[in-house]
């Protein structure tokens, strides 16, 4: 019995890169290129050294974060979008669309292209969800560019990004849907969540069943500087809708949950036969490195509720979704990842054939 295990994505950037970006102020400066490339090369080398069967580029090049990388630098966006407050007290700001039409500045497959040139192991690629980017359209309608047109453009751009990643050979394409619980926080009625689910499904419906098996959805309460933006929202509100998404893989933050058993029972109730559930067994917002026993027990616990043939393990979230986050070292992040990989194999042995 083998239990598949995959990372979520980000690894803390090297301090030298963070300082250089802070100093040069832009990712367009050519002096940054060698630093980015070295960061990617080093990340992949160390990632592969952990023995991880699937790796990422650690999102070293995703400036400035997992949310805005695709629109950062567009002439028709302003940096004064909505604030996302985190429990640690800090905020992150979204971008605001100022004019139509809406187009991505860059697609994530360009990161994949570089990573695959260094990697030997299969590489997965994370992309931002259309629901997260939908919040860029302002309250007031943009003159000459309706909200409906924006939604159409957004769907097409999201679809294009996934197709490009699949075509480049991504092992999996993971849609970062960290705003699921946030949606419930904004609109407890659940209507907003349902519209997010609808929006993502409108995009996923454009893919074949075969492609959908290579697409996954990651949900977590948001993680930044060892804190979250929506952990207080009950998973029970989210999960029934989440499994309506037409994706073959679900990466669900679990290690940081207070009542994992309850959540896993909900998962068992709503998951579908063709869906694989990757349970988060290490927590990036926990600064300590989980013990092997701890991780092993989380996996064995998950295996009690989720059929092993549909079970996988992952991290609760990216270890550094925002590029300037220095709350965790690269070494710690990779150690957590290694712990997850080793304990997944160990748990698989215990479960037996």
């Amino acid at each position: 019995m083998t239990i598949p295990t995959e990372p979520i994505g980000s690894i803390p950037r090297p301090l030298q890169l963070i300082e250089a970006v802070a100093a040069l102020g832009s990712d367009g400066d050519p002096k940054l290129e060698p630093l980015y490339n070295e960061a990617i090369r080093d990340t992949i080398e160390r990632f592969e050294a952990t023995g991880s069967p699937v790796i990422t580029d650690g999102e070293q090049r995703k400036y400035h974060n997992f949310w805005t990388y695709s629109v950062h630098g567009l002439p028709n966006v302003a940096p004064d979008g909505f604030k996302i407050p985190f429990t640690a007290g800090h905020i992150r700001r979204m971008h605001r669309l100022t004019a139509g039409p809406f187009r991505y500045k860059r697609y994530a497959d360009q990161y994949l292209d570089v990573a695959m040139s260094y990697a030997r192991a299969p590489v997965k690629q994370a992309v931002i969800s259309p629901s997260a980017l939908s919040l860029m359209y302002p309250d007031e309608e943009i003159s000459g560019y309706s909200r409906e047109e924006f939604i159409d453009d957004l769907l097409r751009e999201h679809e294009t990004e996934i197709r490009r990643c699949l075509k480049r050979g991504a092992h999996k394409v993971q849609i970062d849907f960290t705003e699921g619980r946030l949606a419930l926080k904004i609109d407890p009625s659940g209507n907003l969540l349902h519209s997010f689910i609808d929006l993502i499904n409108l995009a996923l419906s454009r893919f074949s069943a075969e492609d959908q098996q290579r697409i996954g959805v990651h949900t977590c309460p948001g993680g930044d500087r060892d804190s979250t933006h929506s952990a207080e929202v009950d998973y029970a509100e989210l999960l029934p809708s989440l499994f309506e998404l037409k994706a073959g893989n679900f990466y669900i933050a679990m290690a940081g949950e207070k009542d994992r058993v309850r959540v896993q029972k909900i998962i068992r109730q709503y998951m579908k036969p063709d869906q694989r559930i990757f349970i988060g067994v290490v927590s990036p917002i926990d600064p300590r490195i989980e013990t092997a026993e701890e991780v092993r027990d989380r996996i064995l616990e998950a295996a009690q509720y989720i059929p092993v043939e549909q079970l996988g393990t992952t991290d609760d979230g990216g270890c550094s979704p925002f590029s300037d986050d220095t709350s965790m070292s690269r070494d710690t992040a990779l150690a957590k990842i290694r712990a997850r990989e080793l304990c997944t194999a160990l748990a698989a042995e215990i479960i037996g054939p």
Partner: protein
Amino acid sequence: MASDDTEENLLRSVALQNAKSILLARQRAERELIEAKEALERKTRDLAHSLAMLRATLESTTNGILVTNADGEITDFNQNFVDMWRLPPEVMDTRQHRKLLEATGLQFKEPATFRARIEEIYASSPPESFDLLELADGRVFERFTKVQFVDERNVGRVWSFRDITERRRAEEELRQQREWYQVTLSSIGDAVITTDTQAKITFLNPVAELMTGWKTDEALGQPLETVFHIINEETRQPAKNPVDKVLREGVVVGLANHTALIARDGTERSIEDSAAPIRDATGNISGAVMVFHDVTERRRVEKALKDTDKKKDEFLATLAHELRNPLVPIRNGLKVLQLAGNNSVVAENTRSMMDQALNQMVRLVDDLLDASRITTGKLQLRKETVELAAVVQSAVETSRPLIDKQGHKLTVTLPPAPILLDADPIRMAQVFSNLLNNAAKYSEEC
């Protein structure tokens, strides 16, 4: 930006407005999905109909059909295929073409050759292929294959088999029959030319080659009038080609009288015979056949006979005239003998004259009895040395009664010295007598 509360409200407002737009997008997508589903259902129904038609077509064809994909897997076949290859059902269950070949290959004297050709087709993947398969049991199949393309992608091959054993047998019989006809036509004494419906030559037998001066390989495909050049041998004008009427009206047409064929080298031959339509099994005219023969010699003989007949008539008229001439002195002699009484001199002279006339008649009767002489128109001359005066005297004696009757006066002046002739005295006397008779008849009375 506004205060936190205001911003949270704004975020909620944006999110909910987005939700409405997303709902609209979803409704639109659902409508499109329903339309697509309906279109798909229509296509599915059409496809099912097409498949049913295809299956019916597949099963109604007399050919054996096998369909394989690019991996050599059997994707379809019809019952005719199974029947004509006499395959047990379990062979088809494998759905593997190469497994199938193990069974079908056994039906050949050299299975390896058969299978190698199949592998060659798989390897080279020609757009089409055609092979003639001769099975060990004597059956003969045609195999035609064609690549199947879907959206310009090669998705496999259709293998079509047709049992042509009976057709081959019929073709062989037809070939033998045709050969038999050709040998027969080549062997007969008449000339034979056949044409297609455009009056282009399709066949000449050796006699026709000889008479026209055209060899078969040169004449085939040529217009008939080029090879078969005919004229009216009396008017010397081109004669009507009978094949044109045969092809136009479908009737048997004989050549006009006095038709002559001008050969390639200019040789002219009198010909006769006819042309007739060639009809196929459905009665439609598929060409014409013309049979003719050389009647030059016959026409020459006929002309000779006609000439001979004419000469015979003239001879008989002459003969009657000749027979009548001696009768006159004999009749006169009988009258003289009646009148002469006992005058022995007169009687003797008269008797001599009558004897002479009688001899002439005997000679003429002898001639008459000589059929060969009559047929050839030649009377035999019995030449001897004779004096002209005696011949003239004989002729005058023969003609005297007519001369006297016509009231003419005849003066005979002979040379003093005798003139000897090497001639038939009777014929000479006849000549002079005829001259005198004609002169007496046609001269006016003195």
